[in-house]
């Protein structure tokens, strides 16, 4: 079993404190979900785990099986087994999806032990079929001109090809139609097991109908304010966050809504 442990995490963006002491422990063979209103710091948590250059950790720790993750470069974190499916993945001109994936896979392997081209292609074909992706997605430039939903599927394709120990999925369901949602859930469920732990950031219970979480957390104003089982997501879906604000005595902040 592996463990990703976050303790007392404080994170700033451009001098503004967004995370104000987050504690969270995820083991392999567990699926956690984080929900919470817009702008409360869910993506910030995800980016801080991965090591995004604009997010500064000012206090707290992140460890992977005791190893200090914050000491690692972004690529080292990935090779240690952390994966982030981004809310807004970059478009990279001129780099084909397939080349990118192959480089990513080979980055984890020793020099001279690169994945044989044929096995790579076979595996890629199979995963793309699972995700019902068009064949030409492999030869197109990375995310360039991909629709919102296609980008999300492409993130899951990377997840499935790289098979990390821990994946953080940031709003992997937003912009997906209901069929795509099922497909993406199928992809994640394929990975479920002893060697895989997952943190799903979502606004909608719907995704959790397909990927049943072991734990659900609520983040408000930069802190995890409530944790529970799958039933917590259902309650949030029905009642929103107001009852939590009241119960916990948090003053609701006006947050900028996403466009």
């Amino acid at each position, binding site marked *: 079993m592996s463990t990703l442990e976050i303790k007392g995490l404080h994170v700033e963006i451009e001098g503004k404190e967004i995370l104000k002491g987050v504690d969270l422990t995820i083991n392999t063979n567990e699926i956690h979900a984080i929900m919470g209103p817009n702008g409360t710091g869910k993506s910030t948590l995800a980016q801080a785990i*991965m*090591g*995004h*250059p604009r997010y500064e950790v000012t206090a707290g720790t992140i460890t992977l099986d005791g190893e200090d993750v914050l000491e690692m*470069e*972004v*690529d080292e*974190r*990935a*090779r240690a087994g952390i*994966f*982030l499916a*981004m809310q807004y*993945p*970059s478009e*990279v*001109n*001129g*780099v084909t999806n397939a*080349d*990118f994936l192959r*480089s*990513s896979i080979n*980055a*984890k392997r020793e020099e001279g032990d690169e994945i044989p081209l044929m096995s790579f292609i076979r595996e890629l074909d199979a995963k793309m079929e699972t995700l019902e992706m068009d064949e030409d997605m492999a030869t197109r*430039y*990375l995310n360039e001109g991909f629709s919102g939903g296609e980008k999300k599927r492409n993130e899951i394709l*990377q997840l499935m090809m*790289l098979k990390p120990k821990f994946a953080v999925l940031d709003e992997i369901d937003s912009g997906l139609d209901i069929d795509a949602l099922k497909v993406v859930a199928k992809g994640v469920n394929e990975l479920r097991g002893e060697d895989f732990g997952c943190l799903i950031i979502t606004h909608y219970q719907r995704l959790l109908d397909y990927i049943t979480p072991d734990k659900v957390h609520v983040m408000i104003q930069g802190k995890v304010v409530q944790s529970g089982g799958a039933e917590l997501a259902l309650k949030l879906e029905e009642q929103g966050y107001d009852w939590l604000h009241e119960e916990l005595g948090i003053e609701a902040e006006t947050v900028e809504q996403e466009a």
Partner: protein
Amino acid sequence: MTVETKLALTEQDVRSYSEKMNEAAWMTDFRADAFAKLEQLPMPKPDKTRIDRWNFTDFPIHAVESSVYSSLDELPAKARELFDAEKPGSLYIQHNNTPAFLSLSDDLKAKGVILTDIFTATREHGELVKKYYMTNGVKVDEHKLTALNAAFMNGGVFVYVPKNVVIEEPIQALFLHDDEQVSLFNHIIVVAEANSSFTYIENYMSTVANAKGQANIVSEVFTGDNSNVTYGAVDVLSEGFTTYVNRRGVTGRDSQLNWVLGLMNDGNTIAENITHLVGDNSGADMKTVVVGTGKQRQNFTTEIISWGKNTNGMILKHAVVKDESTAIFNGIGKITKGAVGSNAEQESRMLMLSPRARADANPILLIDEDEVTAGHAATVGRVDPIEMFYLMSRGITKTEAERLIIHGFLAPVVDKLKVEGVKKLLTEVIERKVR
């Protein structure tokens, strides 16, 4: 101070060289005429680069004699990769200044296709060569460097594709440089008659790290009515050459001329690529990639001039500069009076890899007609840290991520080179330069 432009050669030297190369007599006189003009002609004035201290005229020796190849096995391995050794197809190889290998299928010969070194062409296809050689394309008296090319020409190739001939396999030329003393005064003529279609790809390859000579290269391309020509080039000439390279196109009605240029010289370079869209409904698509390194200074002028109605000009340039190199990109879209319905577009993308490298995009639109469309876009930037983060978040190291981004940045042009071997070579050259 201006570099002394006194030339080591005399008119008599030029005449005897022509005779030695067994050229047609008209060419001997043509050279002598050009030589006579040399003295008075001014140097070219590339916008935003001062070249009055550059040396374009000194060189150790006018021409050398190098070995010819009886088989492709005799080529250096790097050069062999450019071709399909099993079936070399249509191929001309020049070894320094010596025509060294020629291959053209009987089928193409029977169709009237001509592929031959320029000396032979003046003799065997005199009327044709005379019609196109510095008449309608590049003029002898444009400036000192064009006259220099005319007088001192010591290599080049003549490509002629008759009416209605469509060639699928590219015609390839290799100019192999492996002697420090060598100067290249090459002249290339490519003629596409009506309704023909083909690709010509040339490689300039140095296998010696240093050069003491000059590279003065002139290419003229003529596309007949309704023809379609792609002209690809990968220039990788070694440091020490001061390169002047002038590639010019003139289009006939309904024809299309595509340029795909990988300009990867290691020395200072002045490159000029101009296409005159003369025929109505003709088009030019000019794609250029450049990598500047070290203290290299380079100036690239890309220009499309619309004369005919409904012509279409597209310019795309991607450049990477590092170290202390400087690269100036002059992009000119010109639509003359009467070229109704024409379009001039250009796009320049520059990536700067180090703080002391400089890339300047200098887009110019000169429009003398009302009913036209035109536009330009230019960006000068650095590697995007968010893109880097994305790639690295999949385990890719910083170095490898940078490599992917740079290759990706140049790919839209590199991928247009249709020959795998040439594409591979260009990719390797880029690799070496950006490392």
